[in-house]
């Protein structure tokens, strides 16, 4: 397995040259207090180092060893507790946290890059701090000041970690039917009882305390999603002076045996009248959860990219080293028994596919992150409202499209290795197994597609969609006469027109067929994804073309060549997807359930 090398050059290209995030920060006073280009760059450097030297070496061993459950205690694989200590000393858990409580207040555009590096190095490890960050977001946004003061500083420092307890054995996607109960107590706290499953980082040996954010229902709560409240339930109760008190009545009943992310503890958590405190308003638990959902979903999308990046690096190294067959145009490595397999067009097709999707994914996640920052930090409300709409629209695409393509890419990366890709020691198959969950958790990709098409497009009759389409149209208009972009503007125009056309088609269908959304949604999301990537690639090419002359590094030249590959070999998928979406719901719904 190749040593992981953080793609800092590409990250800097996106941050500084394509999206020019520093200029954006200057317009947002609350952000410009904490974020400046030098600090941001230093953070990227450090994150690269810690990912490469501390986390990546524990990836394979973590997979082989896995987590161990013993009488309610969970032990992470060898090296994880030590690495976690080093990790939190670097302050990484509080990177995007609220400075008022000890967070670093860094923008998501930087956070997304840091997350990518951590996840590329070691997804299992990265999940522990990721869950903490998610819990902090929800707590910071909705918790009472007393709760925030008591818990956030230690969570941002990583001394305590967090978990999100939503799923129950009978309810995952459909949270409206959860059964966990919260009984009000005389002292204002609640006694929480029930069983939660699939709780990532629910129990482990990395931190001194674990702060569970738990969805539960009050005894007299309305049925369905409108009767769900959010509670903070710590593993250890915290005394007035901030010291740890009694063990709360909750425990880890077992851990799951999974396809991948074996070093991440996936726990069954039993709450047995555990003491908890309400976060946010009663019966508004789901809404509180959704605050952090956009951040988390982007983060999961980045996992897809992260695994694919790692797979790409390994595959390129292998394709340069492994000799097999001769080039179709004559021997290249004449002194060797065969040529390196990177000479073969089909091997290149796989590598180029991964590369084009990865660089597109990195651009897209940075782009979405910039809207998250605007939605959170912009001073004027028009900018905020616009950014919120785009975040709402683009987040499900980022989550689902990046993880679906990320999974495909790890499979390609494995394919480049031939039979060796199937063997554990090479590491390629682990990436496939690890990233598979990203298509499922934080809302399956099917759910993301429904969210996109149903709630984000159809429910507002295409209003959010128009914001995006107008931005792309403005870009096309501004560059229509630009000779540098000539070969890309036409297919980009065609792609956005196709997407707009399909969007309109679906908006019409929805009026008469309630199943129209569900039948078309996954193909629609993919169509949206490829089209937005075409926009990302055009923007990247615009910059690359202006800098390619005289550049000896080959960086800008490669960007342009990869863009060409994307447009000629990958973008055609939009034709198939559009056709499939437009065929309607009838054929999907026709078969009686018993006739399957």
């Amino acid at each position, binding site marked *: 397995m190749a040593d992981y090398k953080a793609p800092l050059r590409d990250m800097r290209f996106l941050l500084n040259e394509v999206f020019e995030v520093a200029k954006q920060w200057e317009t947002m006073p609350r952000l410009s207090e904490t974020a400046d280009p030098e600090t941001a760059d230093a953070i990227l450097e450090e994150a690269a180092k810690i990912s490469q030297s501390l986390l990546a070496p524990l990836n394979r061993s973590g997979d082989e060893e896995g987590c161990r459950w013993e009488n309610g205690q969970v032990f992470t694989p060898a090296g994880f507790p030590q690495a976690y200590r080093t990790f939190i000393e670097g302050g990484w858990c509080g990177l995007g946290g609220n400075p008022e409580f000890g967070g670093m207040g860094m923008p998501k555009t930087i956070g997304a890059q840091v997350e990518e590096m951590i996840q590329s190095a070691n997804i299992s490890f990265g999940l522990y701090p990721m869950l903490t960050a998610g819990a902090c977001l929800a707590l910071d946004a909705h918790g009472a000041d007393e709760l925030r003061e008591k818990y956030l500083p230690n969570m941002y420092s990583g001394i305590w970690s967090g978990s999100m307890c939503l799923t129950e054995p009978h309810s995952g996607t459909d949270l409206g039917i959860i059964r966990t109960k919260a009984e009000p107590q005389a002292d204002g706290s609640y006694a929480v009882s029930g069983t939660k499953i699939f709780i990532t980082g629910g129990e482990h040996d990395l931190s001194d305390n674990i702060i569970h954010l738990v969805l539960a229902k009050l005894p007299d709560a309305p049925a369905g999603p409108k009767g769900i409240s959010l509670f903070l339930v710590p593993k250890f109760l915290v005394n007035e002076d901030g010291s740890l008190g009694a063990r709360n009545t909750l425990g880890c009943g077992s851990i799951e045996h999974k396809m991948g992310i074996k070093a991440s503890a996936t726990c069954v958590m039993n709450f047995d009248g555990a003491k908890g405190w309400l976060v946010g308003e009663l019966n508004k638990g789901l809404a509180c959860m959704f605050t952090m959902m956009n951040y988390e979903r982007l983060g999961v999308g980045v996992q897809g990219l992260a695994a694919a990046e790692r797979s790409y690096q390994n595959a390129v190294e292998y394709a340069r080293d492994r000799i097999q067959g001769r080039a179709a145009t004559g021997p290249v490595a004449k002194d060797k028994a065969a040529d390196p397999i990177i000479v073969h067009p089909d091997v290149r097709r796989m590598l180029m596919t991964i590369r084009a999707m990865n660089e597109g994914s990195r651009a897209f996640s940075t782009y979405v992150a910039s809207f998250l920052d605007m939605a959170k930090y912009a001073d004027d409300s028009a900018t905020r409202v616009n950014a919120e709409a785009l975040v709402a629209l683009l987040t499900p695409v980022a989550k689902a499209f990046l993880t679906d393509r990320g999974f495909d890419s790890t499979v390609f990366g494995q*394919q480049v290795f031939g039979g060796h890709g199937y063997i554990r020691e090479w590491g390629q198959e682990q990436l496939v197994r690890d990233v598979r969950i990203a298509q499922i958790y934080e809302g399956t990709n099917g759910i993301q597609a429904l969210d996109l098409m149903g709630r984000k497009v159809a429910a507002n009759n295409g209003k959010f969609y128009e914001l995006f389409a107008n931005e792309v149209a403005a870009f096309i208009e501004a560059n229509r006469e630009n000779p540098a972009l000539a070969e890309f503007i036409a297919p980009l125009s065609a792609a956005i027109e196709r997407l707009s056309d399909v969007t309109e088609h679906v908006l019409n269908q929805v009026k008469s067929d309630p199943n129209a959304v569900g039948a078309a*949604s996954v193909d629609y999301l993919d169509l949206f994804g490829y089209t937005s990537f075409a926009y990302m690639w055009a923007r990247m090419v615009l910059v690359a073309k202006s800098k390619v002359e005289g550049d000896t590094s080959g960086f800008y030249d490669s960007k342009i060549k990869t863009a060409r590959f994307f447009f000629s070999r990958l973008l*055609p998928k939009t034709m198939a997807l559009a056709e499939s979406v437009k065929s309607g719901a009838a054929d999907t719904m026709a078969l009686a359930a018993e006739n399957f």
Partner: protein
Amino acid sequence: MPDYKAPIRDIKFVMNELLDMPAHYQTLPSAEMTTPDMVDAIIQEGSKFCEQVLSPLNAVGDTEGCTWSETGVTTPKGFKEAYKQYVDGGWPSMTAPEAVGGQGLPESLGLVMSEMVGTSNWAWGMYPGLSHGAVNTMILHGSDEQKETYLPKLVSGEWTGTMCLTEPHCGSDLGTLRTKAEPNADGSYSISGTKIFISSGEHDMADNIIHITLARLPNAPSGTKGISLFIVPKVLVNADGSLGERNTVTCGSIEHKMGIHGNSTCVMNFDGAKGYLIGPENKGLNCMFTFMNFARLGTAIQGLGASELSFQGALKYAKERLAMRSLTGPKNPGGIADPIIVHPDVRRMLLTQKAFAEGSRAMIYFTAQQGDIVHEGETEEARKEADEMMAFLTPIAKAFLTEVGYESANLGVQVYGGHGFIAEWGMEQIVRDTRIALLYEGTTGIQALDLLGRKILMTQGEALKRFTKLVHKFCTQEADNQAAQEFVAPLAKLNKEWGELTMKIGMVAMKDREEVGSAAVDYLMYSGYATLAYFWARMAVIAQQKLAAGTDEEAFYTAKLQTARFYFKRILPRTLAHAASAVGGASTLMQMDVESFAF
């Protein structure tokens, strides 16, 4: 792990209604033994064994895996006993010629059993499966003495076989292999070298293992033309047929893999092991490739099996799991939510699996029928024609069906949501087990080069024309069948485009040597969807006819028809993308410097 249930109704539909196997079997030498009743009885018995014995061992095999020690490899608990039952039941000898102790049944019938075995427990099925190649190679290329010595016990299943090709430095490119064969005074050879990825190379299920091994003679020409084929038994066989000394071929270790844990994937060390030349010197690859089509069709079954098993598991879950309400109003008002099969997106996944599983079965059985004719066809002309048809369809079946089988397996995980990722449900095992099918027996990329380069362009498109003619004939036949036009019209259009696309690529390929490699996989996938469209159209027409004539199996034929519609409307558009990408040009792939791939 989902309990496997053999899809006998669909197997019979493909055999009897689509391919008219009963009439076909009457043209083969085994006609007497393959009456419809006999065929039914064989399938029934086989399905029982697969459902009751093999299926329960599938999860066990994955969890336990194989264990290596200096003395050999131990297979998972229950594997050995199941194998004994399989041998006692006479299953290994089904399709071998009677002359060597076999039952002489058609290969296509053997393939039906292989489907059931492979779907219920692929890792287990690879032990007897590998013997098949060894038996066939020996029948065709072995001397009389070799046949007498090895075949009876290989055919009965008392011994198993392997195929030893790959070495650490060479997989796709066998021309560079290094294993040496030194002639001995007694006419035998001393084989030395290391082979890797040898499936079933060592295990505890049989008394002897016969390794069919590729090696080079001293002074052999370099490259693929200097490779010979040898029989290297694990235990030497005495003149009287009894087992003699242990040969110096040993299993050095077994691989830790993503899946098929129940099958031992061995590093085999040949240390001057005694071997016997089979077939002419330096013609080893030719001998090996004689039966490659059948071996590759065997691997295509893994794709079919993945679609089928994952579909069965996902369907059961989708009917039981309650979440959310149907958009057209509650379907399970008494429950807290509706079963997830009411949701369009869940149906999309199930129907994709179903369309692939049933389409794969049609494509594989059709190809196997051609295989029967190749071996036992009545005329030389029929044999040749079938051989060419099979040569064309094999790379498509192997690569396309395993690619879509893998997609189906992943959809099965997705239907389960988070539970799909958990080992105890068994759905993720199907993904891990199936992944290898896209790699071994020639990767998808290698199959695609074989299809476009060797099979199509080298014959100036003849191989393709043979198949598109068949499609054309069907479309012409059904030209006046109004009801069938929803299938026939798009199929006819596609069939025409297929030729044009091929021509287009062929023209470029004459000038650009990178073109074939650049277009191959997209071209193969396009061909796969087109081929499947042909089979789905034919199946749809049969279903329409049955429904029109009146049938007491209305539900079955209606489902067939509806699945065909789903395939045409929702899956077939993928050809648009593959066609466009295939002609996207080699320059987009070749222009980047090797150094620029990563910074």
